[in-house]
């Protein structure tokens, strides 16, 4: 997209949000504003990105653009106009034909947004019937065309399926097809790629880009992921606490952010090309309705002046974009590089955790299976050899379903390994957790992905922290309380949090409590399962920093699971790449990211998105996930662009280079040369 | 028209048309079969199949003459042989009928000719006709015993068409009935176990007649021109049986005290209704019986207290009565009794027991239990319920003078003397007996106004051939 084009279109806005304020009645019965004085315009054919932390009102705004109000909410002020027509003044009839017709929506979670009891064809036909005016005889043909357009393989077969029979990426494509059925002028995308795999995400974004080029639709792209927004949008609007605080072309906003919030946000994103941990954005966004006066960001802003908390900041025009900040123009340029936190590594050579030829399977043969002598299916995880030294961090990466959590379950003893050795120094970790000694369970602790689920919602923070203290050290109530307060201060929380329930904490606070609980046992090894994936970038940076600091103070060892390579790069000493439960590559971070790559490692790295309009991910040909690991040969054989016949037959050998082990048939040098050939998207996978 | 009657399916579908079966279907049987002797309007024995009867001087041999020209439903003639067969079958130990308890004294039946036969007794009995009046002593054709339960062939006013005791049993008029063809075309006996449902069926016009309704239910029909009510005195009673062989009730004074505290009129009013029956002073002989004696048994709290004090219970006593809800009156009766007895310092407890298994596990086992008896002639009831050693002597009454008087009364041929003896027996029971019999129940019958020919007599005396529905 070139700049002049965008400028031309601004003359005739397609959708115009005009000083729009929207409120809802909260639990106390007060009317509070979720969106405040939002003004935006989208021209025909233009793509606008809408970014911000969770809860800042992005979805609310997006839905309002379809004249949809969630229950309990009402328009307080302003209007939204589509081609000059006030959407909220429309009659239900015309609204119905507008929605799904001229304005289409692609929801965040297509899996839950497709009616589970209807086949794909019925749902597509419905969209065609309502919005296309085609005779019913042509529906099928057109539906197939639509599915081809979103590059779904075997469209005829897809029509016959139910939503649950599709993978997440396929569901998302169906949702796109359905939106396209109405031939919309404006497409609203509410986090269409959140929750998808890195590789799948890259594919969908690429699809959306090409569709836009082909069809020339306008788009409103909602996301909290600046990387994703950078890929799609011509212009970006940054939202904070229900306000648009910065609005401008992608390039301006991403490369020359003017608002302190935008800057901090961009800084908090870990990058593949940077060293160390990103600096975190302090504090949390205000609660809805708590800000009545002044700049909403004032309390978190490192540049705040008295005026900030007294007067509402006006939208100010700056070169190329608009900023809602009293100090705009007076701030110095970005200080990104200087802020990166770098902490020295303190690893030792003392091996702590050892995995040898570990095989894990969920399959439990039943009586009937044993009787019929059915062969057991291929193990979920197989042949895993890992060694982890005290004080080190080993990151396990891989797509969803690659068996990362499964390995962790085996180490924690919830799902004992079927064969192989797992040892913590001298102690045997092969036995299930119920049979382990208390001392041993104390030494291995776990932190979970979703702090909502890992904290008992009915316990106070104190009760949560008390459990391990009581169990391992037999402390009485008062001693527990002192110790618990100490633990909270360790994770930078004040003692008054002891009496709160998890429901009264923010996501980051919850994760801190979970970390405190884990450290209560004074463990040697901590298993971290995607501990930051559920958190906003700003919070993520703070949690990562906390983990790193604690590791230094306490000399603990982390087994760190993540699918975000940038995060891995920031925190880990060693990386193990897992595909379909089989290791592809293991080695020190520096080597893995810069040295030789296994083809799969390369695919993962190419798919990473960066908040930079010039960054282009390279996409592997196929993103369809596999059901079972292959029984023989290389685990990656089916998707590998370099696959050879022997890959299907023989298990590849380990090849080592400076501590970087790669499991591949190809010579290391061959890997290095072959892999840089550009890989193109295959138009339609047959 | 067709007479539609409800019945309570008392034997749960096992209803048998065999008149002497323990589960006899008496609602049908009284229409299908005839007795030798029936109760006349005056309560005295009157001719049915037997036209004449006479006793020998020692009252041990009776000679009876049968009516001429009576035919069974299958067309065969009724003869002395059929009677002999019927009576002997009753006493057949193989069949083991409960009716044998009534006619057990018959030792032999001899056919004199087609119309005449004689009955020989093992002991003198001056009132054999009263025994033959028993509602179960119905004459069946000779040799029909094995399938009578299904065929229902008798000489009554109606003939069986279909037997379905839980549903609707259908009877049709017998055109050859000896008293003349019935007025109605037929009868339907409809099984309705729930008594309230029977009353509702009557109110909704689905049945024509309900044989016994409670005093409260009377109000439902009283001022309604669509219905008529008939009230008939009967010998039926509900009583409380105290075992006389257990302390402290082995003392006759205590027993009398227990019975003296009762205000019988009030009890009747509350339990069954103000005019629901005839007050009785703890003896079983009912008002329609020729041997009935009237005693004064007004409530006497002071007297009861005195008796108790004499017996060594100046501070009163406590008794526990077991009852179930087989009979709804029982519970109500005990509730009233609780209240009345309390005045004399007698604490009455109700021990509620399951209604099934009541007769086997509670009655005659617990120290005190509720009881129920249907109408029987004086001699029969006094023997069955109070003679020492009798199987159903529920109070375990053991009084040699009483037993002696029973024997004397039976063999006494002079009516007045016999009556005096029976009066003595009743007085003994009032003075010393263990059973509280507050009153004999009236039967209240509700019927639709379009039912004709139904006399206000107890149900076994109804002349069904006269009844019709317009």
């Amino acid at each position, binding site marked *: 997209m070139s700049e002049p084009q965008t400028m031309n279109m601004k003359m005739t806005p397609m959708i115009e949000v005009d000083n729009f304020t929207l409120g809802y009645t909260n639990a106390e019965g007060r009317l509070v504003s979720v969106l405040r004085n939002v003004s935006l315009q989208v021209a025909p054919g233009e793509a606008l990105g809408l970014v911000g932390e969770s809860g800042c009102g992005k979805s609310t705004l997006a839905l309002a653009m379809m004249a949809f109000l969630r229950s309990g909410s009402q328009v307080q002020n302003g209007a939204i106009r589509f081609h000059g027509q006030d959407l909220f003044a429309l009659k239900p009839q015309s609204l119905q034909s507008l929605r799904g017709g001229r304005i289409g929506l692609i929801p965040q979670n297509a899996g839950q947004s497709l009616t589970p009891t209807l086949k794909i064809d019925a749902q597509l036909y419905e969209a065609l019937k309502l919005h296309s005016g085609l005779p019913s005889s042509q529906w099928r043909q057109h539906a197939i065309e639509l599915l081809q357009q979103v590059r779904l393989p075997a469209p005829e077969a897809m029509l016959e399926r139910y939503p649950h029979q599709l993978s997440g990426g396929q569901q998302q494509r169906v949702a796109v097809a359905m939106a396209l059925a109405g031939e919309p002028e404006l497409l609203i995308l509410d986090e269409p790629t959140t929750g998808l795999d890195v590789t799948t995400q890259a594919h969908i974004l690429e699809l959306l880009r090409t569709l836009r080029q082909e069809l020339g639709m306008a788009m409103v792209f909602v996301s909290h992921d600046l990387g994703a927004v950078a890929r799609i949008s011509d212009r970006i609007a940054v939202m904070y606490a229900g306000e648009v605080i910065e609005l401008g072309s992608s390039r301006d906003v991403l490369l020359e952010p003017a608002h302190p919030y935008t800057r901090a946000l961009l800084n908090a994103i870990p990058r593949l090309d940077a060293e160390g941990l990103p600096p*975190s954005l*302090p*504090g*949390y966004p205000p609660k809805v309705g708590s800000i009545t006066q002044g700049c909403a960001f004032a*309390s*978190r802003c490192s540049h705040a002046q008295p005026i900030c908390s007294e007067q509402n900041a006006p939208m100010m025009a700056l070169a190329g974009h608009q900023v809602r900040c009293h100090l705009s123009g007076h701030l110095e340029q970005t200080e990104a590089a200087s802020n990166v936190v770098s902490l020295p590594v303190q690893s030792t050579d003392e091996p702590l955790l050892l995995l040898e030829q570990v095989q894990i399977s969920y399959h439990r043969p039943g009586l009937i299976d044993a009787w019929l002598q059915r062969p057991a299916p291929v193990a979920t995880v197989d042949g895993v050899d890992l060694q982890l030294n005290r004080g080190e961090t080993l990151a396990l990466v891989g797509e969803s379903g690659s068996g990362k959590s499964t390995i962790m379950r085996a180490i*924690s003893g*919830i799902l004992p390994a079927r064969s192989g050795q797992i040892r913590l120094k001298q102690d045997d970790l092969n036995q299930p*957790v*119920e049979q382990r000694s*208390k001392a041993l*369970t*104390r030494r*291995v*602790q*776990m932190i*979970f*992905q*979703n702090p909502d*689920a*890992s*904290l*008992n*919602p*009915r*316990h106070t923070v104190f009760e949560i922290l008390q*459990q*391990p203290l009581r*169990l391992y050290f037999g402390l009485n109530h008062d001693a527990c309380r002192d110790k618990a307060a100490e633990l909270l201060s360790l994770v*930078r*929380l*004040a003692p008054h949090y002891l*009496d*709160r329930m998890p429901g*009264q904490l923010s996501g980051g*606070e919850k994760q801190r409590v979970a970390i405190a*609980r884990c450290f209560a*046992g004074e463990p040697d090894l901590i298993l971290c399962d995607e501990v930051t994936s559920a958190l906003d970038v700003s919070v993520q940076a703070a949690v990562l920093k906390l983990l790193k600091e604690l590791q230094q103070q306490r000399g603990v060892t982390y087994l760190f699971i993540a699918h975000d390579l940038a995060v891995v790069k920031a925190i880990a000493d060693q990386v193990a790449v897992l595909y379909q439960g089989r290791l592809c590559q293991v080695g020190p971070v520096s080597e893995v990211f810069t040295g030789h790559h296994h083809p799969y490692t390369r695919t993962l790295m190419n798919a990473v998105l960066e908040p930079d309009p010039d960054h282009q991910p390279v996409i592997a040909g196929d993103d369809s996930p596999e059901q079972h690991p292959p029984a023989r040969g290389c685990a990656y054989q089916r998707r590998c662009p370099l696959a050879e016949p022997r890959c299907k037959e023989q298990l590849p050998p380990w090849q080592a280079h400076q501590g970087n082990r790669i499991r591949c048939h190809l010579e290391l040098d061959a890997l290095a040369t072959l892999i840089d050939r550009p890989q193109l998207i295959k138009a339609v996978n047959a | 028209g067709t007479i539609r009657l409800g019945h309570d399916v008392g034997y749960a579908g096992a209803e048998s048309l065999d008149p002497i079966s323990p589960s006899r279907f008496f609602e049908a049987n009284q229409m299908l079969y005839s007795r030798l002797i029936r109760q006349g309007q005056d309560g005295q024995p009157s001719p049915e199949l037997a036209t004449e009867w006479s006793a020998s001087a020692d009252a041990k041999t009776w000679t009876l003459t049968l009516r001429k020209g009576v035919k069974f439903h299958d067309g065969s003639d009724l003869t002395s042989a059929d009677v002999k067969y019927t009576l002997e079958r009753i006493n057949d130990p193989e069949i083991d009928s409960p009716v044998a308890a009534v006619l057990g004294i018959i030792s032999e039946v001899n056919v004199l000719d087609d119309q005449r036969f004689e009955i020989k007794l093992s002991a003198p009995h001056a009132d054999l006709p009263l025994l033959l009046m028993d509602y179960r002593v119905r004459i069946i054709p000779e040799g029909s015993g094995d399938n009578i339960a299904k065929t229902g062939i008798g000489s009554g006013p109606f003939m069986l068409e279909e037997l379905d005791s839980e549903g609707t049993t259908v009877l049709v008029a017998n055109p050859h009935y000896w008293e003349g063809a019935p007025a109605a075309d037929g009868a339907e006996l409809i099984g309705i176990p729930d008594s*309230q449902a029977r*009353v509702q069926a009557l*109110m909704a016009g689905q049945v024509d007649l309900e044989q016994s309704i409670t005093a*409260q*239910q009377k*109000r*439902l029909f009283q001022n309604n021109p669509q219905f008529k009510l008939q009230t008939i005195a009967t010998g039926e009673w509900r009583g409380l049986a105290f075992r006389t062989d257990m302390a402290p009730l082995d003392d006759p004074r205590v027993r009398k005290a227990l019975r003296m505290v009762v205000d019988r009129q009030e009890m009747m*009013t*509350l*339990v069954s209704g*103000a005019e629901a029956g005839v007050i009785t002073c703890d003896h079983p002989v009912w008002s329609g019986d020729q041997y009935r004696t009237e005693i004064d048994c007004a409530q006497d709290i002071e007297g009861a207290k005195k008796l108790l004090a004499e017996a060594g219970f100046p501070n009163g006593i406590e008794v526990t009565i077991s009852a179930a809800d087989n009979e709804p009156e029982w*519970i*109500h009766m005990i*509730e*009233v009794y*609780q*209240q009345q007895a309390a005045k004399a310092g007698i604490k009455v407890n*109700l021990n*509620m*027991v*399951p*209604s099934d298994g009541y007769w086997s596990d509670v009655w005659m086992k617990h120290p005190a239990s509720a009881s129920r008896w249907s109408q029987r002639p004086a001699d029969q009831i006094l023997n069955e319920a109070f003679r020492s050693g009798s199987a159903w002597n529920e109070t375990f009454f053991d009084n040699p003078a009483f037993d002696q008087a029973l024997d004397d009364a039976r063999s006494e041929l002079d009516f007045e003397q016999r009556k005096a003896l029976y009066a003595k027996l009743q007085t003994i029971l009032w003075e010393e007996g263990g059973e509280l019999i507050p009153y004999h129940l009236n039967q209240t019958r509700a019927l639709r106004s379009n039912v004709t020919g139904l006399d206000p007599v107890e149900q076994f005396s109804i002349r069904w051939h006269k009844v019709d529905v317009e």
Partner: protein
Amino acid sequence: MTAITMDMNTPVAKPASRWRQVWSNLRRSPSGMIGLSMLTLHLLMALLAPWLAPYDWTLQDGYQILQPPSEAFWFGTDHMGRDLLSRTMMGGREAITVTLLGTLLAVGWGGLVGMTLGFVGGRVDAWVMRFIDALLAIPWLLFLLLVIALVGQQTWTLVLTLGFFFGIAVVRVVRGATLEYVPRDFVIAARTRGESRLNIVVRELLPNVLDALLVEAAMRWAWMLLAFSSLSFLGFGVVPPTPDWGLMIADSRGMISIAPWAVIFPALALSTLIISINLTADALAKAIGLDRAKAPV
């Protein structure tokens, strides 16, 4: 400012306890408040009826049989001349005592067994659940009548019988609720910590299942009251002369056309009680955040 100081300084009022929260939610539901006050009224009545009743509820008066409501007898009299107001006031005592104790018993054992089964899982769970299924497959009335015939109809045997029977269904519901939590991370966390099974059931699962259990209890109670009145109707419930609504209705139902008051007042008392329980249960479920379908078994 940094995140750390910010967290320390945020003024937080000591947070309201969870139950206070539930209570304030409950207070905002009009139907719930109606239900709750009706329920309280019923319970108070049951508690204080012997002192409040205008007449002796067993006092029979042959001259006052089936009197319509009047100044002397507000609810009229029954077929034994007893004051219906007094009897209606007393008529809930036995039923409420039996069913309340029965409910506590049912929820107690059902909840414990259900939670344990849900947590233990595996073979034990499978077999016990088959057995529970079989118990549920027996027609409920047959089951109750058989057991009552077996153990008799004293108050405590009724409590035991009803408590046992209604607990069976609780097992299923609670097990289902437990299964929702067993795979949650906080339970896994407790397992990997090495907590004993008992500790996990009591400390981790119970607080979460408590909501479901509470709503379940209220619902079981309503069902049990209905079942109890059915038993009384069939003569297996309360022993006279203790007044009981079910018994009073059964006794007078034939009289409904001439003495409707003898049926209406006890029936009204019974159904207002059950309605109040239902309303309270619904509002409670909502206040707790559990707007779920009612399970009949």
